[in-house]
């Protein structure tokens, strides 16, 4: 399967990554190789192999809905570049 530079640009946009024009060709080539690697799986006959749901052979790792635990707000906000009225603030987002 081939990967086009446009697809790479689109993925970069979706992932909010900035890619310079001079990086695009190399990035496209790398991506193509990655896809080719994954494509090797499709060449195998896996009709008898159950899908592996998770690398760990466990299920139902759950916690009970117990008493809520509080966490101090100052600490929650302490890493934020900016906070107003107990809220994190970011540049204005328009819907």
């Amino acid at each position, binding site marked *: 399967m081939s990967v086009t530079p446009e697809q790479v640009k*689109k993925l970069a946009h*979706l992932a*909010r990554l900035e890619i310079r024009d001079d990086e695009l060709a190399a990035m496209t080539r790398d991506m193509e190789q990655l896809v080719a690697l994954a494509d090797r799986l499709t060449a195998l006959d896996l009709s008898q192999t159950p899908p592996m*749901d*998770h*690398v*760990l052979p*466990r*299920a*139902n*790792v*759950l*916690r*009970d*809905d*117990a*008493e*809520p*635990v*509080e*966490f101090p*707000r100052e600490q*929650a*906000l302490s890493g934020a570049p*900016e906070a*107003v*009225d*107990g*809220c*994190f*603030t*970011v*540049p*204005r*987002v*328009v*819907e």
Partner: protein
Amino acid sequence: MKYEMVIGLEIHAELNTRTKIFCSCSTQFGAEPNTHVCPICLAMPGTLPVLNRQAVEKCVTAGLALGCDIAPEAHMDRKNYFYPDLPKAYQISQLFRPLCTGGTLEFEYEDESGQARIGRVRINRIHLEEDAGKSIHDLYGASTLLDFNRGGVPLIEIVTEPDIRSPEEAGAFVDRLRSILRYAGVSDCQMQEGSLRADINLSIRPAGSDTLGTRTEMKNLNSIRAIVRAAQAEFLRQTEVLEDGGVIVQETRRWDDAKGRSLRMRTKEEANDYRYFPDPDLLPIRVDGDWLRAIRDALPELPGSKRRRYVADYGLPEYDAGILTSDPAISAFFEDAVACGGDAKAVSNFIMGDMMRIVRERELDFAALPFSPADLATLVNRVAEGVVSISVAKGAVLNQMFEAGERPDAVIERMGLRQVSDEDTLRAIARDVIRDNPGVAQEYRDGKTKVLGFLMGQVMKKSRGKAQPAAASQLLKEELEK
């Protein structure tokens, strides 16, 4: 050309767990901003989510209540998108293997012309996911404020098939769904607090066609009325676009209920490339055998069967049964009052009439009234015994019960509200009324007997509602005919 609308709904209901879906923060609504947050729901690096068992159970409960198949194995997936109210830059949701699939909801509703109809809407799936935080745009011009208290609150998303054909049907579906989710005990479904949110997917097509048109998605519908109005408005908008020779663009629109119209939010192609993949931080969920049986056994009686039971066991009219079972708190109050010895129809009349009106006006909750179902049963019995008149019971006594939580017998004694059937007292009142209204009394004697109603009104007024009506009426006639 005549068009018909095709509607599918996506309904998000916040589950009423105590803690969030992946961490132990409180889910309480209305707290100070960011007081219910922690490193997990703020997506600090190195933290790991652990799924809330009761969130899984409530999702499965909702599925059972709607007749869904419960997947023996379900997974959590990541839905990737960037928005500041989503700190991980992905929402943990379910795409590939949701907990519940299939299912149907049947409900009665009245169509546009008021005709009774049966709606039958298939459920495509119910999946479990986390809510996002809240963005506040309005107060500060240059920035957006973020409150993550809601971030990580467990949600179920209920996706219907495009089976709905009218705004009224859509509204009735949501109404019945809300009732079922409340009965099942999975969500409070407070639309104004956002714990139940509906998105409408609507397309139109020439009537009789069976291909689907391009759909739009409408958000921000926070009442049943808004759902009905938004569907009506979107049907008209799309019809106008097509009739003007235009094409419908697949887009998300935001309903403005005050203005009664919608505005485009974003076009769908940009937004919906979510690149879902299984979340490696969370292990599979297996609801099988004993666990599924336990959830099924704990499922309470749902409104449909309750309604049938009220008609069969209590002899109530369908109409009463429908209203009483619309909300679990109301039906519980009703059942308890009947269990305490109140006559079912009399209790129903009190609840459906004055109590529901007062509860609505004062924004109270049937689950937390200042008096008990036993008090209502007592009041109903005092009316039946002739101790108080129905009007005094529904007026002064009920009012005082709401005001102060005072027991009905105490109100009756303290305020002297016992019905008067003593002949001498009633005769004296009747004479007073005749003396005060000589003209009207003469009209009666001249054969205009319908003025008796007016004179009886005066008797009731003079006795402050306490006169026993049958006795008073009899004595009044006697005095008039003397």
